[in-house]
Every structure is written in structure tokens, then in C-alpha cells.
């Protein structure tokens, strides 16, 4: 129910009826008595007296009635007024209605008689106010319709219809001027329109069109609405607006249409202002609901209403001071003080009571205007104006730091909540630093669970934004803990997701897989989506990223464990199946899949490899079809070409060339960002293009095409820092060899320029170009070849060393490149030494010394970390060989340990040549006298022996064999050598067979040792191995020393071991000499050969051997002469 105390209207009408002067029992006296009874609150007596007077004047038989009949209407009017004031509206309505239903009351003569008594009733006579009674009929129905909360009278909305009917009739009378002067003086039309506006809004089916019509009419009326009517009407509009949000705009329209009525003076502001805040708050909720419902117009109307009502809400301190002034002035004055500006009146007591209220509000720090600012900020935030929202909270913090809110537990400080909100808004407007500082001021204990969670979640978001992943990972654990009760919460999902993301950023690949697969196993995204709180877009973003992180983690781990490749590809397949239409990460995942299939290649098994390649081609085709203009498209086309040119099927290779050409075009279309792919594709084309004929093409055309790729590379794809430029230098140089000297010189100059450019680029960017070493080494070879080709003579060693020492454009501080050049110089020296070794042993030995000096100079000039892995391994290996030649164990230990520092440098740095470095280190450890190091050496060799690469496994097994031989563990040495044999390793096979023979012999397995040596012995042309094998056989036979057995004549003669020892040598020496290999031997070979010859001489001098040989010769002679005979 809503109270409708249209007091002003009542007052006006009632006032007119009040003062009457009459005699006892005559009309005037009766009227006076009625008034007195009303004053004494004797309503029933007053009514009874009215009825008595009515009966008296209405009796058709009474003479008195005939004389005083004109008084009767007046008492009906009075009766209605009394009932109305007593809130007996049905009775009031009937009393007023009588004036209209009784025809005699319409008699003008009767009315004239009543009006003629001017000295009565305050100069108005006994005016029955026929038209005014129509108003009161309407108003009685209106009151019945709305009810009265204070009087506990329930409203009956069905009464609005008759109220409207009577009110509109009265308005028509009023506007036509057919009302009394008194009524005209009250300027009622605006008020009547306002009441009709309310009635039309409040009736069971509101009629907004009619309401709008009366709103406009009320606006055009000049007089301000009576105070209670304005306030009560506004309350009506508020109620309707809240119940019918689509018409929420009525509130502000009413206020703006009647500005004078709502321009509240200080007292009215104090009296009514506080009533506007709650409706304003409710209206702001309509804003929120409307925005969420997508009803922008409705939201705008609600927002206007919200601000309008907030604007009517008083400021506590300002009002309190104003009231204080009035209170002190009017203190004790009980008379009514009219406020003509506001259309109201008040007295001293009103001001005192209001002052106390506002004083209390101020002291309890519950300033209404602060809540208004808060509400306004909330509305702005809903609209997305974070700056306005932030401004609101800033004002709260600056002006109302102690603001409280009333709760069931009493006033509670809002400070922490407001600081918290301000922090969030600072973050939203780019003031991250301030947001963090403000959040630091928030007392967590004063925040609710929601706020605490938000703080943790914000912290997590901030840390992720800042890239502080280590801390973010910790906070994400807290977020998960705080939100785990509701697994549909987006924050729970975010917490789980950030854990994975953080692990990924921190390169904790195993954690990425564990946490990521945990998320997928728990179906975290599915659960949250089903819960309806997580948006599909957010779920897709997070799940695709999560899956991508897992895929990429497998990729990283696959470098050391190829089993991850399978898991990676499973992830790719699952990703594509789950998100067939995803376009953000799916291209990357496809690309990852293609790369991985290329890497896995079926694990080396032909069928599986073919399958992988077909799958990769399918991914390539799908990628190009789906995202032809994607940044990765040229890369994918290039991989597609790469697969085709490496296909087992020769027929597909030309297609591969054409595909690579497409990749070049697609990449160059992308401008600068595509250059790298174009360079890669051109590099492949220039490499493979020389071997694959296109349809209808001859060799010359193919060759020209391949060279054109090289030219195009330098013209369009080359750029500083491009990893293919150094690789292309070899093509450039090789191609120039087929041209002329000018072309060669030009190519050399270009090669020098590119090498220097890339060296300087690496220096400036603190990066290492892995191809620098191979390029310089290749350059060294080609330069030497070209020099010889175009100058007719070879470069001297001095020219070579000079060339590399003074290589143009290399910065003095670029130790990496300079060490490679130095190594190239050493390589040249080594090559010269090898040549010398064939001809001049002394010269070769001197060269070897020079090489040794150069190496040792390198170790002084360059720290291990200056050197590439390759050079570290070279230097280390040199040290190992040097140490191996030393007899002094202490010196050997020192050199071996020095070597280890170079190997460790490469191992700790990672990258290429790690296995080689480990091999070297294992060898160096094995050379030391330290048992622990020897054990470590064995362990390292064992680990390396498991490597799939025979180039690593072979030397490892050889190292194990040597180590066991050196430590006298011959049986283990033989086992290691056997593993080598069984693995079918070819690398260093003959060296290994020598070791195997030694191991077998020393472990007592003489027969097998002889068999191994015999194999080597039989390949006599390979003196490096046949000579030591021969020598070993001779020694083994000699040492076994089995005597001759059997009888020659019987045919069961078996020579003695010593004769066999001598004979093995003499056959070998004889055959080598016959083959004239002796003249071609290297000094090393010759040394080994000489050992055989020497041993042969020793054994030949043995008497027993000579005797047995003589016997043999004799026997053969006898046998020969018999045969002749």
C-alpha cells in the first residue's frame, strides 16, 4: 500500500468548510457544534448531528424544512468531509455522491439561497461545493484504491477505475471553468493531472499512454505540486518503475517535469531526501539487469532515473549545518513556518528532530552522498566507464575514508572494500603499479571470502602479466585451493591453467605434461562449461593453450627421449579432433605435427617411416587448404617440398622441387618476415636442385636452375643474421669453381664478407652461428682448391696460415670466430703433416711439434668458453693424445685433467658434439691414475655405448676395451670388443679387432685371438693393421711353443709353433716385398713393418726353427724327386 496524503487538497477543501457562525439548533449553531465535535475527536457524534440536521431539513412535511431546505446540502458536504478525514472513504463517497444523486440539490434557486447568506461560513455562505464534492468522490475512490499503510488499510486497485472516471469528470468541469472561485484559486489542474497520472500507472493494467498524457499536462501547469502530493506521487512512480522496469524512466521524467516541486529546500531535503537513496539503488539494479538483458534503452532510462534520484539525496554535513542554523533560530517555535519556495511548512520542532537525525548520520559516518557516489560509480562501471568508476572510488577514499555501512552487526568500515575496488579500477585503467600498491593496503581480514579470492586471483593475473611465472605458479596453487569447492568456477579453471602455463614458461617440461594431462584427465574445462559459468570462448582459449603446452613440452623432451615424439603426435591428433574449427593455435599444432613426423620418420623402420611421411603430407595439404595465407603457410609448403624431395619414390621428387619453389614465392610475398623461409627453401633448392631433374629438363638446364637458386638467394633472401647465408657460402664457392678466376675471386670476396658479417652479427647479438665452423672449414678447402685451379699452384702452408691469421673483417674480441680460423689453420697444418708423414718422417715430426705448439698456444690464448664445441672437442682430444704419449703418470694426469675442462665446457653448454665431448672426457678420465675417475670413465663409456649412433657407440666400446686392457681386466675387455662385433659396427673396426685380439690373447683365449689376428693378417695390403696382426700371430705362436707332432711321411705332421711363428712372418714379408708395397709405406706403417721384419730375423736365427725348416725343405725335396721319378 502506498500512502496518498494529498494533504494540500484536503486542507483546502476542509478549510473552506470549517469556520461557521450560527445559533444553537439553527444551521449556524449546528455547524459550529459539528466543528467542535470534530475537534474533540467525536466523529460519530459529529456525523449524528449532521444526520439530524439533514433529517430536519429534508422532511417534506416540516415547515422548518421548507424554510431551511437550502442548508441541507451543506451538511451532506460536511458529513463527507468528516468521513473522509476519518478515512471512512466509502461513507465519504456516499455522502458526497448524495449531492449529485438528489435532483433537488441541483436546484439553482436553492443554491442561490445558500450562497446568499454571506455573513455565514467565512463569507462563503452555506455553499454545498457540488463540483468540489465530485473531486472528493474521486479522491475517496483513489484513497480506497491505494490504501494507507500507516492506517493499515489495504488498497483495492479496482477502485482506480471509478476514481479515474470521477477525476476526469472533475477535471473537465475544472478546465471549463464550471467550478467555484475557491476551487479556481487553488490552481488544481496540474495537481489533478498528477493524480490521474498516478491512477493510470497504479491501476491493475497500467496505461502508460494516458499516464504520459497527464504527465505532460501536469508539467504545463504553473503551480508547484503540493509537497505531500509531489513526494507521494514520486513514490508511486518509483514503485511502478521498479515493478515495471520497462517504464523506469517515468521517475526522472516526473522529476524533470516538475522542477519546482522537487527543488527541495533544506528542510524538505532533510525530510524527504533520505527516501530517495534506496529507490536510486534499486534503479541502479535495473540498470545492471537491463544491460545484462541487452536492453540498452531501458538501461539508459534506469540510469537517468538513478542519477536523478541520487541528485535529490542530501549531503549529510551540508544539511546538518543548514538544519542547525534553522534549529537554533526556530528553537521552541511551534508555529508553522511556510517555505514558499518549496510549498511546505515546518516548525522549530521539525528542524530539531531533523537536525538530530542528520547529526547522527554524520557521527556514524554513514554519509548518504558517499553512497550516492558509490552507486554512481557502480552504474558507470556497468557501462564500462572505468575512469568514471575510478573517480567515484577515489573521491570516497579522499573524502570519506572512514565511511561505514550499516550491517546487522552494526556499522562496518567500508575502507578496505573501497580501496580494493579502487585498486581493481586502477588496474583496468592502466595504473598497474598503483593497483598493486593499493592492494597492499587492503586488510585481508576485513575482506569477505569473495574479496580475498579476488585479491589472490588478481595477484595471479598480475604476476602472469608481469611474467613472474615462478611466483604465479605458487599463487595459482592458492587460487586452486581457494576455489576448489566450486569446480565450475572460471577462477578454479584459471588457477589450474596458470599452473600449467607457469610450468611451461619456466621450462619445466615434465611438470607441464603432468599438470596439463591432469587438467585433461579431470575434464576441468568440460565441468566448468557444463556449470555454465565459464564462457565457451574462454574455455577454448585455455584448453587449446593447455594442449599446445603439452605438445610443445613433449617436443622439448623428445630431444633426449624420442619416446616423447609418439606422445606429441597423439596430442596433435587429439587437438585436431577436439578443435576442428579452432584457428588460433590449430595451425601451429598442425605445423608441430608435420615437424614431429619429419623428426620421427617411423623410428627408422621403412614402413612406419612411409606412414609418417604420408601423414605429414596430409597435414601439409590440410594446412594449406585451411590457412593459405597464414604466416606459417610458406614454412609448411617448404616442409611439404622437403618431404617430397626426400621421398623414396623418385617420381615425387620433381614435385618436391616445384613445391619448394612455391614456398619461395609464398615466403617472399610476406616481405621481410618471409625472408627466412625463402632463404631456407632456396638453400634446399640449391642443394637438392642439382640432383633432381624436372620434367623435360636436361642436366645443363638443371645445373643452370640450381645456380639460379643461389643467385636468387643472394639477391632476394639473404639478410644479416640469416642462418642459411653461411650454408650458402659453400654453394657460392663451389659454383665459382666451375666458372673463371674472376668468378672465383668474386665468390671468395663474397664468402669473406658473409663470414665476417655473420661473425659480427653473432658477436653483437651474443649468439653463436653453428654453421660458422663448417663454413670456414669448407671455405678453407675450397679456397685452397680454387687457388690451385686458377693459379696453377698450391697454396703454401705459410700462405694458408697467413690467410687465416689475417682473415678480413673479424673483430679482435670475436674469439669464437678467431678460434675457428685458428683451427682451420691447424687443420691445414695437419693435412701438411699427413702428407709429410708419407715422405719425410722427420719433417712430419717437426710439423707435429708445430701443431702441438699451436694447440698449446690455443689453450693459452682462448678459454674453453671462447671455443666452439667442436674446437673444445678438438683441443681436448689433442690433449688426450698428448697425455697418452706421456710416460710420467703425474704429467699424464695433468694433461688429462686439462683435456677434461674442454670437454666439460662443451657438455655444460649443450648443443652439437656433446656425445663426442663425452667420449673425449671418458677417454681422458680413463687415462688418469685416479680409480674413481677410471670408474666414471667406464660408466660414461657404458652410457655412450648405448647410443644408437655407431659413431658414438663404436668409440665408446673401444674406450671400454682400452680401459679394461689398461687396468688388466682382459676378460671384460674381450666382452666389450665382442659387443662391438655383435653390433656390426664398422667405425674403427680394424683398430677394434686389434684390441679384440689383444684382449682375447691376454685373457687366455688363444684360439680366438689367433682367429681375430689371422683375419687382419690376411688383408696384407692394409699394412697398418696386417703388420701388427702378423707380429701378434708370430709372438703368440712363439710363446705357445707347441712342438712339432706326427710324421711327414705319414702325412700327419704338424709343425711346431715356433716354426709357424717364423713362417707366418716370412710369408708376410715375402708377399709384401713381392707386391712392392714397401716403397709406398707411410713412416708409421714402415715402423710396424720393420717390427715384423725384426722379429722375423730373430726367429729365423733360432736353431730349432732352422732345423725344422731344413727338415721340411729336405722332405719336400725328397718328395719332389720321387714325384719326378
Amino acid at each position: 500500500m502506498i500512502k496518498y496524503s494529498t494533504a494540500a487538497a484536503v486542507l483546502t477543501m476542509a478549510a473552506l468548510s470549517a469556520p461557521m457562525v450560527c445559533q444553537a439548533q439553527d444551521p449556524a449553531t449546528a455547524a459550529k457544534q459539528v466543528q467542535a465535535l470534530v475537534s474533540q475527536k467525536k466523529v460519530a457524534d459529529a456525523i449524528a448531528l449532521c444526520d439530524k440536521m439533514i433529517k430536519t431539513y429534508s422532511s417534506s412535511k416540516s415547515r422548518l424544512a421548507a424554510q431551511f431546505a437550502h442548508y441541507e446540502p451543506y451538511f451532506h458536504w460536511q458529513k463527507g468531509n468528516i468521513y473522509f478525514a476519518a478515512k471512512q472513504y466509502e461513507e465519504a463517497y456516499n455522502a458526497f455522491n448524495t449531492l449529485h444523486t438528489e435532483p433537488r440539490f441541483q436546484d439553482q434557486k436553492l443554491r442561490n439561497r445558500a450562497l446568499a447568506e454571506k455573513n455565514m461560513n467565512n463569507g462563503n455562505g452555506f455553499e454545498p461545493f457540488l463540483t468540489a464534492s465530485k473531486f472528493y468522490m474521486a479522491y475517496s475512490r483513489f484513497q480506497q484504491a491505494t490504501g494507507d499503510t500507516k492506517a493499515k488499510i489495504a488498497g483495492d486497485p479496482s477502485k482506480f477505475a471509478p476514481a479515474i472516471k470521477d477525476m476526469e469528470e472533475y477535471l473537465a468541469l475544472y478546465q471549463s471553468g464550471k467550478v467555484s472561485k475557491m476551487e479556481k484559486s487553488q490552481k488544481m489542474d496540474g495537481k489533478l493531472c498528477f493524480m490521474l497520472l498516478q491512477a493510470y500507472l497504479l491501476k491493475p493494467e497500467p496505461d502508460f499512454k494516458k499516464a504520459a498524457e497527464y504527465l505532460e499536462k501536469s508539467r504545463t501547469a504553473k503551480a508547484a505540486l503540493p509537497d505531500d502530493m509531489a513526494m507521494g506521487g514520486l513514490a508511486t512512480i518509483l514503485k511502478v518503475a521498479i515493478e515495471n522496469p520497462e517504464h523506469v524512466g517515468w521517475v526522472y521524467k516526473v522529476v524533470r517535469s516538475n522542477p519546482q516541486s522537487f527543488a527541495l529546500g533544506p528542510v524538505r531535503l532533510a525530510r524527504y531526501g533520505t527516501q530517495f537513496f534506496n529507490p536510486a539503488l534499486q534503479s541502479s539494479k535495473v540498470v545492471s539487469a537491463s544491460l545484462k538483458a541487452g536492453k540498452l534503452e531501458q538501461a539508459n532510462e534506469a540510469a537517468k532515473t538513478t542519477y536523478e534520484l541520487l541528485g535529490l539525496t542530501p549531503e549529510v554535513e551540508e544539511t546538518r549545518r543548514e538544519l542547525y542554523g534553522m534549529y537554533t533560530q526556530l528553537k521552541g517555535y511551534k508555529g508553522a513556518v511556510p517555505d514558499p519556495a518549496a510549498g511546505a511548512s515546518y516548525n522549530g520542532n521539525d528542524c530539531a528532530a531533523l537536525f538530530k537525525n542528520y547529526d547522527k548520520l554524520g557521527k556514524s559516518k554513514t554519509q548518504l552522498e558517499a553512497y550516492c557516489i558509490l552507486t554512481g560509480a557502480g552504474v558507470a562501471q556497468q557501462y564500462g566507464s572505468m575512469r568514471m568508476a575510478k573517480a567515484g572510488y577515489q573521491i570516497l577514499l579522499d573524502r570519506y575514508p572512514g565511511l561505514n555501512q550499516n550491517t546487522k552487526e552494526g556499522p562496518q568500515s567500508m575502507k578496505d572494500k573501497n580501496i580494493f575496488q579502487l585498486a581493481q579500477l586502477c588496474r583496468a585503467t592502466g595504473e598497474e603499479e598503483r593497483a598493486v600498491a593499493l592492494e597492499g593496503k587492503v586488510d585481508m581480514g576485513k575482506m569477505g571470502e569473495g574479496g580475498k579470492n579476488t585479491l589472490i586471483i588478481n595477484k595471479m593475473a598480475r604476476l602472469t602479466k608481469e611474467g613472474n611465472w615462478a611466483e604465479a605458479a605458487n599463487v595459482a596453487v592458492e587460487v586452486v585451493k581457494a576455489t576448489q569447492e566450486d569446480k565450475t568456477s572460471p577462477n578454479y579453471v584459471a588457477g589450474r591453467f596458470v599452473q600449467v602455463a607457469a610450468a611451461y614458461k619456466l621450462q619445466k617440461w615434465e611438470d607441464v605434461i603432468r599438470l596439463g594431462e591432469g587438467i585433461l584427465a579431470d575434464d576441468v574445462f568440460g565441468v566448468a562449461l557444463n556449470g555454465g559459468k565459464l564462457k565457451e570462448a574462454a574455455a577454448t582459449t585455455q584448453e587449446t593453450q593447455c594442449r599446445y603446452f603439452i605438445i610443445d613440452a613433449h617436443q622439448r623432451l623428445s630431444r633426449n627421449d624420442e619416446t616423447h615424439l609418439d606422445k606429441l603426435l597423439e596430442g596433435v591428433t587429439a587437438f585436431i579432433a577436439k578443435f576442428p574449427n579452432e584457428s588460433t593455435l590449430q595451425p601451429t599444432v598442425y605445423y608441430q605435427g608435420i615437424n614431429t613426423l619429419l623428426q620421427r620418420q617411423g623410428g627408422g623402420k621403412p614402413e612406419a617411416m612411409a606412414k609418417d611421411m604420408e601423414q605429414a603430407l596430409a597435414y601439409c595439404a590440410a594446412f594449406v587448404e585451411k590457412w593459405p595465407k597464414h604466416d606459417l603457410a610458406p614454412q609448411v609448403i617448404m616442409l611439404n617440398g622437403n618431404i617430397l624431395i626426400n621421398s623414396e619414390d623418385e617420381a615425387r621428387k620433381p614435385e618436391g622441387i616445384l613445391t619448394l619453389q612455391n614456398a619461395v614465392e609464398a615466403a617472399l610475398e610476406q616481405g621481410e618476415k618471409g625472408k627466412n623461409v625463402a632463404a631456407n627453401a632456396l638453400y634446399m633448392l640449391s642443394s637438392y636442385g642439382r640432383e633432381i631433374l624436372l620434367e623435360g629438363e636436361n642436366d645443363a638446364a638443371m645445373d643452370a636452375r640450381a645456380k639460379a637458386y643461389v643467385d636468387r638467394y643472394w639477391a632476394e633472401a639473404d639478410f644479416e643474421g640469416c642462418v642459411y647465408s653461411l650454408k650458402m657460402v659453400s654453394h657460392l664457392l663451389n659454383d665459382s669453381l666451375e666458372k673463371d678466376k674472376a668468378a672465383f675471386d668474386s665468390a671468395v670476396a663474397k664468402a669473406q664478407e658473409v663470414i665476417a658479417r655473420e661473425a659480427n652479427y653473432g658477436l653483437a647479438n651474443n649468439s653463436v652461428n653453428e654453421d660458422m665452423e663448417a663454413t670456414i672449414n669448407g671455405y678453407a678447402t675450397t679456397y685452397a682448391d680454387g687457388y690451385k685451379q686458377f693459379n696453377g699452384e698450391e697454396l703454401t702452408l705459410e700462405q694458408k696460415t697467413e690467410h687465416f691469421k689475417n682473415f678480413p673483417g673479424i673483430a679482435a674480441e670475436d674469439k669464437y670466430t678467431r678460434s675457428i680460423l685458428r683451427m682451420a689453420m691447424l687443420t691445414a697444418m695437419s693435412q701438411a703433416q699427413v702428407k709429410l708423414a708419407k715422405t719425410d718422417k722427420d719433417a712430419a715430426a717437426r710439423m707435429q711439434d708445430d701443431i702441438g705448439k699451436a694447440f698449446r698456444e690455443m689453450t693459452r690464448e682462448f678459454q674453453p668458453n671462447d671455443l666452439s664445441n667442436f674446437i673444445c672437442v678438438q683441443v681436448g682430444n689433442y690433449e688426450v693424445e698428448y697425455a697418452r704419449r706421456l710416460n710420467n703418470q703425474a704429467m699424464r694426469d695433468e694433461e688429462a685433467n686439462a683435456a677434461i675442462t674442454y670437454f666439460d665446457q662443451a657438455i655444460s653448454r649443450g648443443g652439437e658434439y656433446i656425445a663426442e665431448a663425452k667420449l673425449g672426457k671418458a677417454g681422458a678420465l680413463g687415462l688418469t691414475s685416479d680409480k674413481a675417475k677410471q670408474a666414471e670413465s667406464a660408466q660414461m663409456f657404458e652410457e655412450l655405448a648405448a647410443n644408437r649412433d655407431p659413431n658414438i657407440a663404436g668409440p665408446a666400446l673401444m674406450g671400454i676395451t682400452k680401459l679394461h686392457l689398461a687396468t688388466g681386466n682382459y676378460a671384460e675387455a674381450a666382452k666389450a670388443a665382442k659387443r662391438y662385433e655383435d653390433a656390426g659396427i664398422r667405425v674403427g673396426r680394424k683398430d677394434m679387432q686389434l684390441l679384440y685380439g689383444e684382449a682375447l690373447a691376454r685373457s687366455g683365449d688363444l684360439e680366438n685371438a689367433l682367429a681375430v689376428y689371422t683375419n687382419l693378417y690376411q688383408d696384407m695390403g692394409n699394412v697398418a693393421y696386417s703388420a701388427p696382426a702378423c707380429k701378434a700371430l708370430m709372438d703368440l705362436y712363439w710363446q705357445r711353443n707347441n712342438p712339432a707332432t706326427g710324421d711327414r711321411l705319414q702325412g700327419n705332421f704338424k709343425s711346431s709353433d715356433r716354426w709357424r711363428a717364423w713362417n707366418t712372418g716370412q710369408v708376410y714379408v715375402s708377399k709384401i716385398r713381392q707386391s712392392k708395397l714397401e716403397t709406398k709405406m707411410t713412416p708409421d706403417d714402415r715402423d710396424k713393418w720393420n717390427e715384423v721384419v725384426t722379429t722375423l730375423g730373430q726367429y729365423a736365427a733360432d736353431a730349432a726353427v732352422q732345423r725344422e725348416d731344413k727338415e721340411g725343405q729336405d722332405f719336400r725335396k725328397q718328395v719332389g724327386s720321387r714325384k719326378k721319378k
Partner: protein
Amino acid sequence: MKLRNIFAVGLAALAGLSQAQEPAKQQGLVAIVQVNEKSKPGKLVVKSASGKDTFVYYDRGTEQDVQRNASKMKLFFLQTPEDMVEAEHALAAGDLDQAATKLAAVKDKYKGYLGLDRNPAERAALLELDCAARRKDFESLKRLAGTFPHTDWLSDQDKRKVMSARVLAKACTGGAAAEVETEVKTLLEDKGAAMINGNCYGWLQYALAHVTAAAIPAEEIAGTISEGNLATANKAIDLYCQAGASSHGREMELPVDAMTRAQALLWAMPGVKEYAAKGGAMDAGKWGAAPANFRDAVALAYMLKNIFGAGNEAIDAAAKLYFNTQAGKE
């Protein structure tokens, strides 16, 4: 018993009017007066004031002018004259030109009553400040605040209002930034800062914003704020927004102007115009990817146009790019 109250108040109202009619025929202001505890309250016509607290009325009994001190009376309460009511109504209706004229007339007509509590001349002078600020007539504001009569007779609250008006006028008529900042700081640091109401606080924020924004070349505001002026622009935006939020819906002319200026600065922030120029219908993705300043500029423009009834070509254009991110939320 409501019945009695309704009749009683009604009678009193009429009685009040009838009593007031007679003195009103004399020249002067009606005051409700009670001399002491023993006397009854009544009304008289005050002819003038004579300095602080002293008034003169015509005593019909002695037919002479009598001078009294208001503060020595048990009750002295000046009633609002009709012309003041009209001026206040014009101000409430937002007819600021008419209000300015009427307020000036009231101030002049009743200047002889300055010194008495609740005198209409002082109230008119105070409301003139509001009116000038709402009209953004800062030259008038400067004049009115600078020539405010008898500021030493004002309450602390009203003194601060005059001081705030002076600062606002100074800031908006080329006053030195440093001076404005110092004066604002003094007013807000003062213990009486709580006596500054929301409107006046908004004036001070507007003043600070104005002098801050003045450091940014106009061509940058029309174009793009340079890197070197970004911090200044951000500060000005935040201050203008505070000026907009301070009054929480009351007398919105200056707050709306402040928000309009904040919007213009936001629109000039780097990347905002460029993002707007991308064209196409706005959707959640585009809105989410937009720079924060773009989103704020557009949201503010939308609110200015659709809630506060402000508008210019730039605001209209920006408001068209608005996207309701709340739609569909629960």
C-alpha cells in the same frame, strides 16, 4: 488522530497567510519574531538591517522605526520573499539565464538586509555562484566571487563555497596552475574540508583538471597526445572524471562539461582514434582487443549522449562504437 491534525494544520496555514498579508503591504521582509520567553511569537516587517545582526522595523504602536539585535531575540526568522522564491524556482527549473537575472535583482533589492541570518541577498549571492558555475560563465563567476559582499559575515560553509568559486574562476580564466594547485591543496587540507560540499569539491577538481589539461597543446587534444604529455593527460582525465562524479547527479551542467572534456582527452590518447578508424561493427572480440582508453572513451561518450544528454559530433561518433559487454552476463 489524523482528523484533527489535518484540520488544525489547514487552519494554521490559512491563519499564517492571513497574518502575513497585512505586514506584507509594508515595504520590507516578513520575519517571525518572539522577543522573549514571556512574549508570544508574531510577525513583523523588517525595514532593513544595520550591520551584522541588527535590524530596523516600524513599530505601529509608537509609529517609529525601532532598532533591535536579532541575536538577542528569542526568535528571529526571516521568511523568504516571493521574488526570491521565483529566482529559486527558475534555478531549479534550469532556466539559468532567468535565474541569474532574478538572483541579481534579489541580491540588489535586499542588500540592505545583509548581516541578518537567512537574508535573501546573501542567499541570492551564493546561488549566483552556483548559477554562474552551471552556466560556465567563469568571468561572471570571477566577478561575483571576487566582489562577494561581507564574506566575513558568512558561515564557514559558505565562506568555503566562495573560496572554491574563486579558485574555479581563477583556473578557468587563465590563472596560474601553481597558484590554483596551492589554493586547492589549502582548501582540501584544511580541517574544514568536510564543509565543502560535493558541488564545490567538484569545482575544485574541475579547476585542477583545467590547469592540468592547459599544459597540453590544443593540437594534441584534437589529434593525438604525445608521449611526453601522456602522464599529464591521464592526470587531467582522472581529475575531470572526479569533477563529474562529485555532484552525484546534482546540478549536472559543469560535471557534464568535465566528463565531456575527459572524453575528448581519452579520445586523443594514442591508439584510440586509430582503433576507431578500423571500422566495422563492434563486437565482443573487437571491444576486448581495444585499448583500455578506447573502451573508456566510447563508454563515457555513450553515457554522455544517452544518460546525461550531452552531445557533439565527436561524442556522437564515439558513442556509436559502444558495445554492451554486460549483455548475456548473469
